[in-house]
């Protein structure tokens, strides 16, 4: 039992931190978030060709590095810390994971390789207007037609949906309900019948889009995996895997809120002393640190479980629980730390100029993604209270 980074993992994390500190500065983030694309294509090209982050946990036969989820999560934590604007999350944490979990071996080689090389970006669309983030919430429909399927309906909250090169679309058979009838389709984003629109968002560091399927025709070959196989449980796994990635970003976001707040309070002098010397301020900072560290423990434990789930390990069965524990805690932690950060910054925390406001907005936006804290707690409550027994083990 060793719940600590290996030296290689520490190196990956430190390298990511050093790179992003230089590349994802406040000015760079502000410039990128002001663009329609939402990220700097040059920086993304450097990341994908020099840093190979998008390839970290992808299999070697698809051009990946074959490392684990812990390495992925360590990198994501740093991306959250530096508010990196990039298509990384949508391409790797959503689309690549969907391919890993549900595509056939041949499809993985064909479709993962351009993602692993950085040649293409991709995302996953499954949610429509509403508050349900579970796999069963899929509402876009498919009907069989000659040589394939026709998709109809509208997706919302699709991360980088306006810019991704490929889309994985989750749809359900017309008339199906619940876990039945769901399939995943991979399409190029310029396919006829697709309308994509970027949605304005309070948090400008991560773009979201609406995607409308209006009699969208897709061939049978676009279906991930065996067309006869239900995809609901795979989709659920993908959502849990992505949820853990958001939690990791939230850890970095919380850490940076703490660090920048401490730095500010050590400089700001009132009544002849730094405000960091006041107990009212110190105790708030201590509460922030407690949440940052606990959030980090939750995210890394969940990363270990995700690794087990992807490699078929026995602890993989804890995936849903670990994802919900991490997301429930990290969401609250990020909101608390960034909100307290604004408070401890005082007046300047309310300005556009200081970065703490961007972290606050990112924390709020991330909280909603893949289910807010309360929804994950309810999912855990159902496991604890509605199932026969969860057992006495921790």
């Amino acid at each position: 039992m060793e719940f600590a980074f290996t030296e290689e993992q520490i190196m990956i994390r430190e390298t990511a931190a050093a790179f992003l500190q230089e590349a994802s500065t406040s000015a760079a983030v502000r410039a990128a978030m002001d663009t329609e694309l939402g990220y700097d294509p040059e920086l993304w090209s450097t990341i994908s060709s020099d840093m190979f982050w998008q390839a970290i946990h992808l299999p070697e036969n698809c051009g990946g590095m074959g490392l684990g989820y812990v390495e992925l999560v360590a990198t994501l934590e740093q991306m959250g810390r530096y508010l990196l604007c990039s298509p990384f999350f949508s391409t790797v944490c959503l689309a690549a994971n969907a391919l890993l979990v549900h595509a056939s071996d041949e499809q993985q080689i064909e479709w993962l390789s351009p993602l692993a090389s950085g040649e293409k970006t991709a995302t996953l669309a499954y949610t429509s207007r509403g508050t349900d983030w579970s796999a069963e919430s899929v509402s876009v429909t498919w009907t069989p037609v000659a040589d394939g399927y026709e998709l109809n309906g509208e997706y919302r909250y699709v991360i980088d949906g306006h810019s991704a090169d490929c889309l994985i679309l989750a749809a359900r058979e017309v008339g199906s309900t619940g876990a039945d009838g769901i399939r995943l389709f991979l399409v190029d984003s310029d396919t006829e019948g697709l309308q994509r629109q970027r949605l304005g968002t309070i948090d400008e560091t991560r773009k979201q889009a609406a995607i409308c399927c209006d009699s969208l025709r897709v061939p049978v070959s676009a279906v991930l995996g065996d067309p006869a196989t239900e995809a609901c449980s795979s989709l659920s796994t993908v959502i849990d895997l992505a949820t853990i990635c958001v939690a990791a970003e939230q850890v970095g976001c919380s850490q940076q809120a703490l660090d920048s707040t401490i730095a500010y309070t050590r400089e700001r002098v009132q009544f002849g002393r730094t405000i960091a010397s006041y107990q009212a301020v110190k105790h708030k900072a201590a509460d922030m640190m407690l949440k940052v560290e606990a959030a980090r423990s939750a995210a890394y434990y969940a990363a270990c479980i995700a690794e087990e789930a992807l490699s078929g390990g026995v602890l993989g069965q804890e995936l849903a629980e670990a994802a919900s524990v991490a997301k429930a805690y990290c969401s609250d932690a990020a909101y608390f730390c960034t909100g307290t950060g604004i408070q401890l910054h005082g007046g300047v925390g309310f300005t556009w100029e200081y970065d703490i406001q961007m972290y606050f907005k990112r924390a709020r936006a991330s909280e909603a993604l893949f289910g807010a804290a309360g929804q994950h707690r309810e999912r855990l409550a159902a496991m604890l209270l509605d199932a026969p027994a969860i057992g006495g083990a921790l």
Partner: protein
Amino acid sequence: MKLEFSAADEAFREEVAGWMAENLVGEFAPIRFRGGPGDEHMYVEERIAWEQRLAAGGWTCIGWPEECGGRGASIEQQVIFAEEYARAGGPGRMGHIGEGLTGPTLIAFGNEDQQARFLPGIRAGKEFWCQGYSEPSAGSDLANVKTKARFDEERGVWLINGQKVWTSLAQDADWCFVIARTDPDSVAHKGLGFFLIRMDQPGIEVRPIRQITGTSEFNEVFFDDAECGAGDIVGAPGDGWKVAMGLLGFERGVSTLGQQMGFQNELNAVIAAAKDNGAAADPLIRQRIADAHVGLKIMRYNSLRMLSGGGDGSLQPEATIYKLYWASWRRNLGKLAMDVLGPEAEMLEGQGYELGPLQTLFLFSRADTIYGGTNQIQRNIIAERALGMPREPKGN
């Protein structure tokens, strides 16, 4: 990162679980799950007998080095023992102060003679210890102790005068370790000594404190020319603070994971109560139960991180959050237990002031955020030591 224990460690887990299942039966059946925090005054005789059963099985002091009578168990094995002990309902340990505090202190700071005289009695589950730190004017400000130690040249013994407070198990302990001022003119951390004092003597009086729970686990201990042998001071006069602080380091260790198994038992009781009376259908209660579950899971992950990191045994910055984290968690669980029970939470079993387990949890957990460093002191420690914020100014 690797979450699984090794095959050898899993075999060790089975050995512990098997031994507990075989031994915590018969005469010991009534003390299963008893004698923990808030219940330490119960079943003292039986728990002393249990200590000796543990000792006979080689299950006391397993983390001590072999040459000191322990097993030299690895951190993993100590964690596993603590978990399986608690999972089986092992009663609150009468010997935990000797095993977890006195022993490690003597191994680190004591001389050979002290180790030879004191370690075997602890190891055998025959000599029990209590801790004489806090005083009426030395709570959070522990260095403010007023108890005095004066060496009587004629009699060749130290004479101790003063008062200690919040001393758990004092009425059942054979020995007490005490910090007292060897230099009467000294202040704060300087001029203190660390003394090993026999409890059964005319110069010592133990008075129980009746607590919020109506019971008395904590005591006041009065020293009136109490005697302490010349060879029973650990380190030199003036070293007391160093020894005491070293000892506080031993307090935050592997026992945390066993403690959490006890918390899991408490959370399970709350969940069972909620299922039983229908509170499990209340959306707000469901949120709070899930939150407690999240909190306990993460407490375990925090501990695994603490135990895995820092191979040199040093306390990492993140370890400073542990006390604030668990104490706040358990205090919230106590309130949740009451809210789950609803109006029945108020009702006592009989006509006396006898609390049920969840009622005890509710009231006793108010102590958790106070003893061993209040939540406020813990926040100072986190802010100053882990975050490097300015230290509190000292008063005059």
